[in-house]
């Protein structure tokens, strides 16, 4: 061993003088199912961290290697406090001493967390060593008030054409992703994370993916994908897997929000994906029932709405005085057989600033992403939409709405006039244009280009089945022959008159070069 280190230890031991510590304690009277009932701890606070004295009666040698068992207070009763044990519940015994820490549950946070996988307590679980702590932040905090916030005015591009055009998301917004299982909810969230890689480094949001109650294999696959695509360079993954205690699953989204707030308070932008809050609600229900809190609708406790609202209210766009950082939330809710009127979905719909509804029928019709444009809405995002996107997106929403009406009518009518037929055909082409393969987010300027081509009438002569080929060729053409148009759109974030004429000329030239794609 290093002689300097030995000397340092020797000095420390020589200077050691036993000190006296007066602590508040309690005694475990009952324990089971991850819950411990404690007598004593007279001045305990809500969400106070408590430490179970598992080293009592153990020799010093054994006590040194003992991982402490930690819990936090959730019920304050007349004679008892009920705590939730975070890990190592099997080591709790009746009569065990419990020490109050006088601190509410907090987690270590630091910039070094980027690129790492952590558990609900902020501890690394990816085997890449310890994370240097910059500060500790309480896991629960009151959301910023009206004065501390500013309006949502900066777009957060998802790289998904249908979303960026019709359900735009702004930085600081809370946009719910809702749908049945297997409809691509996680895929949308992950594409959004992947797309942030194309943002300039100085404005790129730090992404936090919170996996709640998911299979470890799925999380491993997601982390692998993010790593492979280079997205872990700006992403933190918080995991409370299916095999973790309900308490950890309950804490995980709050941990994600706390990490996000750390970056927001530094003036940076952050994006948190809560995947998913249905499982979070189930974990909280389990804990509440074990804590013997009265069950309400669907056996959820009465404060389930408050649980989600206080979590999602922490998303904000801060005022310039506070650094102008933002925390965007993309909560995910899994519905059962498309029922959006169930308890938890309606709660979260009413809390968030809009929702992206994924439809099983559309998914089965190979419309991917399976976004139901009629049921999806963004209440604040349009204020953050870029001028370029706003210019083209208004038209596509209208065209698609007309198409959906006519499509329903078409099922009954056999003889249609030419104008109606053309509208239906155009609607089909536009729907086809909005299709996007999983894991391939588009850059902002290419999204605008594709939609502009769609609404300007260029696609009118293209066969529906050739739409994907058309889009590929169009992008290739612009990359090689009209990169300047894309570049100026990317810089200006608008389609100026000058730009538009260049765009029209480039599109006309594309049409003449690839005339084989156009039937008329």
């Amino acid at each position, binding site marked *: 061993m290093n002689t300097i280190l030995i000397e*340092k230890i020797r000095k*420390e031991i020589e200077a*050691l003088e*036993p000190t006296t*510590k*007066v602590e508040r*304690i309690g005694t475990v009277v009952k324990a089971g199912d991850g819950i411990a009932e404690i007598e004593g701890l007279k001045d305990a606070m809500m969400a106070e961290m408590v430490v179970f004295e598992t080293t009592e009666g153990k020799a*010093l040698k054994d006590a*040194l290697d003992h991982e402490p068992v930690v819990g936090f207070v959730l019920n304050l009763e007349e004679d008892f406090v009920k705590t939730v044990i975070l890990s190592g519940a099997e080591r709790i015994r009746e009569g065990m001493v419990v*020490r109050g820490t006088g601190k509410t549950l907090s987690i270590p946070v630091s910039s070094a967390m980027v690129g790492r996988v952590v558990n609900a307590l902020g501890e690394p679980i990816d085997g890449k060593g310890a994370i240097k702590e910059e500060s500790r932040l309480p896991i629960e905090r009151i959301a910023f008030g009206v004065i501390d916030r500013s309006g949502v005015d900066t777009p957060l591009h998802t790289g998904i054409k249908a979303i960026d055009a019709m359900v735009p998301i702004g930085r600081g917004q809370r946009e719910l992703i809702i749908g049945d299982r297997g409809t691509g909810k996680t895929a949308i969230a992950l594409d959004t994370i992947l797309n942030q890689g194309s943002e300039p480094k100085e404005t790129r949001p730090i992404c936090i993916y919170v996996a709640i109650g998911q299979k470890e294999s799925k999380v491993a696959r997601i982390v692998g994908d993010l790593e492979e695509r280079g997205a872990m360079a700006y992403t933190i993954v918080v995991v409370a897997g299916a095999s973790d205690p309900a308490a950890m699953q309950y804490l995980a989204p709050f941990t994600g929000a706390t990490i996000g707030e750390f970056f927001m308070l530094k003036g940076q932008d952050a994006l948190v994906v809560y995947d998913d809050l249905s499982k979070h609600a189930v974990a909280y229900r389990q804990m509440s029932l074990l804590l013997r809190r009265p069950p309400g609708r669907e056996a959820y406790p009465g404060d389930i709405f408050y649980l989600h609202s206080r979590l999602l209210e922490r998303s904000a766009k801060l005022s310039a005085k506070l650094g102008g950082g933002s925390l965007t939330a993309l909560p995910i809710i899994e519905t059962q057989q498309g029922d959006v009127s169930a308890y938890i979905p309606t709660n979260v719909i009413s809390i968030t600033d809009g929702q992206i509804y994924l439809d099983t029928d559309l998914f089965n019709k190979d419309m991917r992403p399976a976004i139901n444009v009629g049921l999806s809405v963004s209440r604040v995002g349009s204020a953050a939409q870029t001028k370029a996107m706003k210019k083209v997106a208004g038209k596509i929403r209208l065209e698609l709405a007309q198409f959906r009406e006519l499509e329903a009518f078409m099922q009954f009518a056999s003889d249609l006039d030419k104008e109606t037929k053309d509208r239906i055909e155009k609607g089909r082409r536009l729907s086809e244009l909005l299709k996007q393969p999983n894991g391939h987010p588009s850059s902002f300027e290419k999204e605008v280009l594709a939609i502009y081509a769609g609404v300007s009438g260029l696609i009118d002569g293209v066969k529906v089945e050739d739409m994907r080929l058309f889009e590929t060729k169009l992008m290739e053409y612009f990359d090689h022959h009209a990169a300047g148009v894309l570049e100026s759109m990317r810089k200006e974030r608008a389609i100026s008159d000058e730009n538009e004429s260049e765009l029209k000329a480039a599109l006309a030239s594309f049409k003449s070069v690839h005339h084989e794609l156009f039937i008329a």
Partner: protein
Amino acid sequence: MKASWYAEALAGALVGKNEKEAEKVVARFYEVIKAHGHTGLLPFIPAELEKIEARAQAHREATLVTADAKSRTKWSHAYDHYYRETLLPLDATRKDVIDETIIGGYQIRTKDLLVDSSYKRSLIELYQKITN
């Protein structure tokens, strides 16, 4: 309904009662339990009462833990000090315990307070300071 809940109610009702009054309370308690159809819980209630009494006894106890019998007298003054400082309950009854694992020093424990001046705690803290 649990036997422990009935036992707690009964224990509360019996506080400060003399023998005659206690008899009346018990008779009334029996009527209540019968009216609720919970007479099946009666055999378990005495055991629960014993637990409550043991707990109350433990609450009054203040334990002085030392590493060996020799140091007990040495640390008695610490116990007296905290008693005078009213950190310990006024009706506290002292109980002496020997626990070799604390290595040295002492610990004074009541229901909701721990005065820890053990060498074991100091050494664990030193270990954590060096290794973290």
